[in-house]
């Protein structure tokens, strides 16, 4: 539909388009520059009132030089667009822009006066860092892109903007380094996002689930982060950062399994300490998955595995426990999961109560009542801590989930069941792909050169090339600077 040229018709169309919209401002005024009537249209809630008053209304009302057509109208706004399509007017109004219709003109002027409520930039709550930057992403994609650009003032950093959702019309921006990112990986991601046909994408997490490679995997195949420095570090490895408007976390794709166990602090810590911490996390990963199942296997099948002294301690502790080990373990694990979930969404003052209740009831009362054994409490506590050490919340949740089938299989088959469970995990990780790149890289397929930055972290100067997992087209990262 074209924009009507007479103002009366414009007003009628506005009336028809926006029926029940109390925050819509339609303001008719006479402009001295043009010696014509104009209509200024904007949504009060999404536009910046100061900007409209100072930069639009003031010149329109008081500027005296002569303008003959739309292009010559003087306003103090840099980003001006012209359109003669009504649909574009609609979109623009909903984006917080103001629209200027001029009597007798087919074209309308779109002025960038956006200004909606937004939060100040703050440290991310979920991923806090000791040495990294203390700025986190916020809910406005423009600001988020700005945070990334601050790290990479480079013309190879490209931004590709897509719109997702019929109703939501979410702006989704793909950021990548053009000379590093593999074009086919980029195309794959772009195609997948373009294929999405939903009402609206409210959060990055939703977008991630709509485009992931294997929805039946327990593992997240893309990384969500609220940290600009983490996003940039991944950009430099040839990955693509997806900034979704209205969501404070950005998605990073393609991802590899091991990257979920790394934090940005690892690179700013000295390499020996970073390596130690990474090994600790790897250990924690296995403990979080296998410790309860090992306990079950050892108690119900292979007590001959344990030396005599240990078995006496365990036996003494389990003497009064009426439950079989698998029930005992599931009871305790469920209790701690419930505690966690309860503490997660409660306001901080009440959250502390949960901690006390959990600590006293589960730590002592359950043992004294003879419901569970002391050893089991220790096992559950270590397991819980193990799952907390995994830095990525998505991966930590996956690990917590995998623990339960492992416990069941080990209660049926002992260590053989655990071995088969691990085998299934290894096979699954070897099959899994992220945007068509191997998720298990650099372990399956094995790429020794990339092991420098996995469960260990070599000194930074030795990591001269980018990891292969995202198939970067430019491998060289830095030159050899020391011996």
């Amino acid at each position, binding site marked *: 539909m074209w924009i009507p040229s007479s103002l009366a018709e414009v007003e009628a169309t506005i009336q028809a388009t926006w029926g029940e919209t109390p925050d819509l401002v339609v303001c008719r005024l006479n402009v001295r520059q043009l010696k014509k009537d104009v209509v200024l249209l904007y949504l009060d809630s999404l536009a910046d009132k100061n900007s409209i008053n100072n930069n639009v209304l003031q010149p329109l009302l008081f500027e005296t030089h002569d303008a003959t057509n739309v292009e010559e109208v003087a306003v103090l706004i840099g980003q001006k667009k012209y359109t003669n399509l009504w649909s574009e007017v609609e979109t623009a109004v909903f984006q917080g822009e103001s629209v200027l219709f001029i009597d007798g003109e087919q074209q309308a002027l779109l002025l960038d006066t956006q200004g909606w409520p937004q939060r100040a930039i703050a440290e991310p709550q979920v991923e806090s860092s000791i040495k990294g930057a203390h700025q986190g992403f916020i809910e406005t994609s423009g600001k988020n892109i700005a945070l990334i650009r601050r790290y990479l003032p480079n013309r190879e950093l490209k931004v590709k903007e897509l719109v997702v959702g019929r109703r939501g019309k979410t702006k989704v921006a793909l950021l990548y380094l053009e000379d590093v990112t593999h074009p086919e990986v980029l195309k794959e991601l772009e195609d997948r996002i373009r294929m999405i046909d939903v009402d609206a994408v409210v959060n990055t997490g939703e977008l991630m689930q709509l485009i992931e490679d294997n929805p039946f995997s327990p593992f997240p195949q893309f990384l969500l982060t609220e940290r600009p420095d983490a996003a940039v570090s991944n950009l430099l490895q040839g990955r693509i950062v997806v900034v979704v408007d209205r969501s404070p976390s950005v998605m990073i794709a393609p991802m590899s399994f091991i990257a979920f166990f790394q934090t940005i602090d690892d690179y700013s810590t000295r390499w020996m300490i970073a390596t130690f911490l990474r090994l600790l996390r790897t250990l924690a990963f296995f403990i979080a998955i296998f410790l309860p199942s090992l306990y079950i296997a050892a108690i119900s099948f*292979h007590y001959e*595995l344990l030396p005599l002294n240990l078995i006496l301690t365990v036996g003494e502790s389990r003497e009064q426990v009426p439950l079989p080990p698998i029930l005992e373990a599931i009871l305790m694990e469920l209790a701690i999961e419930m505690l966690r979930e309860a503490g997660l969404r409660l306001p901080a003052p009440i959250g502390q109560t949960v901690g006390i209740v959990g600590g006293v009831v589960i730590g002592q009362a359950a043992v004294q009542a003879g419901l569970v054994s002391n050893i089991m409490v220790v096992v559950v506590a270590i397991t819980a801590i193990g799952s907390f050490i995994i830095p990525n919340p998505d991966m930590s949740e996956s690990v917590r989930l995998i623990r339960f089938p492992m416990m069941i299989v080990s209660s049926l088959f002992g260590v*053989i069941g655990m071995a088969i469970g691990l*085998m299934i995990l290894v096979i699954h990780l070897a099959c899994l792909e992220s945007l068509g790149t191997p998720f298990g890289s650099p372990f399956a397929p094995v790429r020794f050169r990339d092991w420098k930055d996995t469960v260990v972290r070599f000194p930074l100067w030795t990591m001269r090339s980018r990891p292969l997992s995202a198939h970067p087209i430019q491998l060289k990262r830095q030159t050899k600077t020391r011996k």
Partner: protein
Amino acid sequence: MAMTRIPQNEITIFQYVFFIVGAQIGIGILSLPADVAKGSGTDGWIAIIFGGVLSIIASLIIVSIMEQHPQDTIFDLLLRYFGKWFGKLLSLLFSLYAALAATTVVFTSIHLVQVWVLPQTSNYWIMILFMIPGFLAARQGVRILGRYAEIVFYMTLWMPLLIAVPLKDGHLLHLLPVIKEGWLPIIKTVKQTILSFLGFELAFLLYPYVKEKHLAKKGIIIANGISMAAFVFVTLVGFIFYSPDEITEYVWPTLSLLKTIEFPFMERFEIIFLAAYLFVLSTTGIPYIFTAVFGIAHVLEQYDHVRVLVVGVGLYIIVSFLYTPPFADLQAFSDWWGKTGTIVGYIFPVVLWLYMKLYQWLRGGKPS
């Protein structure tokens, strides 16, 4: 009728090597020291080296056959040279051979688990358990199997170190004198080592997927070399630790070696070892299951082998409900695998090679 499923399904030369090593090191190595000791006493390790050389020669013949048609698996090749019906018959026989190998590995693994770890668990439960990873891996292509074989190889590198622990109580004297009874018993024992080296014949299936084809010959020599080193190593450790007569009394001397290992925090370490050894067994069993299923799907002209795999896995589970192989049957399985393996791995390549030369010569010297 080009049913090659090669695009996007390449494996690296390392994956090819470890794929073959994985297929070779499996159940054979568990009983190998006793098997060769029965034939030629503590000179058995020399027989293994001869066996290795034989398998290298056979592998090289296989690779030179495959080189003639680098895009063909053995199943395509058989159709190309023997026509539709006879080619299909041969393909079916090859698949059945792989199925026999897979069955031997699966049932022996179940038996091992029952004897050493889970004496009370019925074999069908263990079969169902084993078939889960088996199905998940075998439904994928060669590429995933290659990746899996590669990572498992690195994951199991600690095992030889542990097997070496009993050496501290061993006596090198057991090995002397070398060649105490002449060469004849050694040559006769070579036959016993054939079963252990089987696995290289999977190059028939693997070759077209290899990315660096010019390295295929070197790769297969290295693969056989690694397996041979492992076999010789385990056998020597067994011979040094056990006395020459004692070792023949064990069914699985390699596992018995581990019974002597104890840690302050853990006794009966061989249980853990056996659980981890399931990974090694899986890289033997899964490739054979895959080969059998892939070949049968090829014969039935099914593009996707998953349906055949579902039937195969179902059959295994049903059979395991009805039939628990006693140890004698397992030995019969192994013997059959050894015999058919001699044909498929050693005789068949030579015959095929001669036949292809003849065929090409009749056709005017050019490969068809």
